[in-house]
C-alpha cells in the first residue's frame, strides 16, 4: 500500500495541459525523460501549492461531506461514522510530505497544552543527531536542520501561541525544514534497525538504498514502514483512521505501535493524511 499525497491531486487543468502532447507520444528508449518528468511534477506541485495551505485551519468534519457526492454511499456512511467519534479536521497539503506535516503539527500542538513530554522528546532528537553523525551524515547540514527543529520546539516550550505555531507550519521554508528533520529521524531509526526492517523491503534494495530513495528525499510519500519507524523512533504513538472504499460503513483504525494509547489521530484517505480532532 502506497500512501501519502500525490495520488489525490491531479487537477483537471493539468490533464488538459499535458494531454495534447501525450496524444502523439511515442516512447523512445534511447531518450532520457527524466527532466521532463521532473518538469511536469513541478507544474503539479505549483498547482497544488496555489490551492492548498500547507496546514489548514481547524474545520468542522461536516466539510468533508461536501468532498464526496451525496450518492456516494460508502463515503457518506463512513463520514457519519467518523462524525460519531470526531468533531474536526485539519487538512494538509497533498505534496508527498503530508504524513510528516500532519504528524508534526498535531504533536507540537499537543505540546502547547501539555509540555511534560518536551524534555524526553528533545533528548530523543539530540540522540538521533549524534547517531546520524556516527552513521556518516555531514554534521554541517544536520546542524542546520536540527537547529531549526529544536528552535521551533524551544519556542513551543516557552512562549509560542497556537497562531504562531500555525504560521510556522505555513511558512514554507521553516515548515519544510521540519519535514527534512522528521525524515532524518526516520532514516536514522531504519538504518540503526536495518536488520529488522530489511525483512519488509520489496525488491532488491538494502535499507540504505531504501532510505536514500524513499525516506530522505522531499515529497516522497510515507508508507507503513515509515510510520512504524517514526513512531518507534520518537515514542509518539499515533492512531490512523483509514477511510477507503472498503465495504461495511465503518472507518477502521490502526494504532502505531499496536495496543498503544495514541497521542494524536490522523485521517487517511487513499494517498493522503489529515489531522482529526
Amino acid at each position, binding site marked *: 500500500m502506497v500512501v501519502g499525497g500525490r495520488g489525490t491531486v491531479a487537477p483537471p487543468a493539468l490533464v488538459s495541459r499535458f494531454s495534447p502532447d501525450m496524444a502523439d507520444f511515442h516512447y523512445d528508449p534511447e531518450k532520457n525523460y527524466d527532466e521532463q518528468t521532473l518538469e511536469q511534477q513541478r507544474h503539479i506541485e505549483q498547482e497544488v501549492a496555489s490551492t492548498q495551505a500547507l496546514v489548514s485551519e481547524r474545520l468542522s468534519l461536516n466539510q468533508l461531506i461536501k468532498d464526496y457526492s451525496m450518492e456516494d454511499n460508502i463515503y457518506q456512511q463512513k463520514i457519519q461514522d467518523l462524525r460519531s467519534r470526531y468533531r474536526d479536521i485539519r487538512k494538509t497539503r497533498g505534496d508527498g510530505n503530508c504524513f510528516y506535516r500532519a504528524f508534526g503539527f498535531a504533536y507540537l500542538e499537543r505540546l502547547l497544552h501539555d509540555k511534560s513530554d518536551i524534555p524526553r522528546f528533545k533528548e530523543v532528537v539530540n540522540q538521533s543527531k549524534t547517531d546520524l553523525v556516527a552513521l556518516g551524515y*555531514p554534521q*554541517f547540514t544536520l546542524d542546520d536542520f536540527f537547529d531549526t527543529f529544536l528552535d521551533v520546539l524551544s519556542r513551543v516550550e516557552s512562549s509560542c501561541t497556537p497562531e504562531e505555531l500555525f504560521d510556522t507550519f505555513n511558512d514554507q521554508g521553516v515548515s*519544510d525544514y521540519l519535514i527534512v528533520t522528521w525524515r532524518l529521524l526516520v532514516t536514522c531509526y531504519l538504518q540503526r534497525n536495518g536488520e529488522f526492517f530489511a525483512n519488509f523491503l520489496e525488491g532488491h534494495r538494502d535499507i540504505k538504498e531504501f532510505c536514500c530513495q524513499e525516506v530522505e528525499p522531499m515529497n516522497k510519500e510515507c508508507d507503513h514502514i515509515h510510520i512504524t519507524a517514526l513512531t518507534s523512533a520518537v515514542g509518539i504513538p499515533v492512531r490512523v483512521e483509514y477511510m477507503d472504499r472498503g465495504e461495511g460503513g465503518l472507518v477502521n483504525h490502526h494504532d502505531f505501535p499496536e495496543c498503544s494509547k495514541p497521542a494524536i489521530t490522523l485521517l487517511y484517505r487513499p494517498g493522503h493524511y489529515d489531522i482529526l480532532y
Partner: protein
Amino acid sequence: MAQDQSSLLLKKQLNELMKNPVEGFSAGLIDDDIYRWEVVIIGPPDTLFEEGLFKAHLVFPKEYPLRPPKMTFKSEIWHPNIDKDGNVCISILHEPGEDKFGYEKASERWLPVHTVETILVSVISMLADPNDESPANVEAAKMWREHPDEFKRKVGKCVRKSQEEFVD
C-alpha cells in the same frame, strides 16, 4: 522565508570553507551573490586531469537545500559526464524522479543533507572515474572507451588551457 534559510546556509558553508579549506577545490562568490558561486577544481592527482585548474559555476535555487544547485564548467573540459556546454550531469545533482529510465542509480541522487563539499567531492571523483553508462557527452564517452590515447591528448589540452587561463 525559504530564501532566508537558503542564503543563511550558503553563507555558513562559505565561511566554513574559507576557514577550513577542503583539499581539491576553492570557492568564492560571483558578484557577491550568495546564490552564485565560482569554484576552482584542481584536477585530481594520478588522473588525466592532474594539475588542471578548472573553473566552474554553481547556481543555487532559492529552495536549496531541498533542491540541488546546477553546476557548469566554465573552463573547457572533455569528459563523458560533462556536456559540451559545460553542464555537469551526475546523479547527486538530480532530484529523485519517479522516472527510472536512463539515469544512474537513484540512491545517489540529490538529498537535502548534501553540501557544497559533498557535491564537489563527487565531481572530483567523477573526473577520476567517468561513468559511461549515461554519458552527457557521447563523443567523449566513445573516445574514452575506444581511443584512450586520443582522449588523453584531448584532456591534456584542456588541462594546459585551464592553467593558462587561470594565470591570465
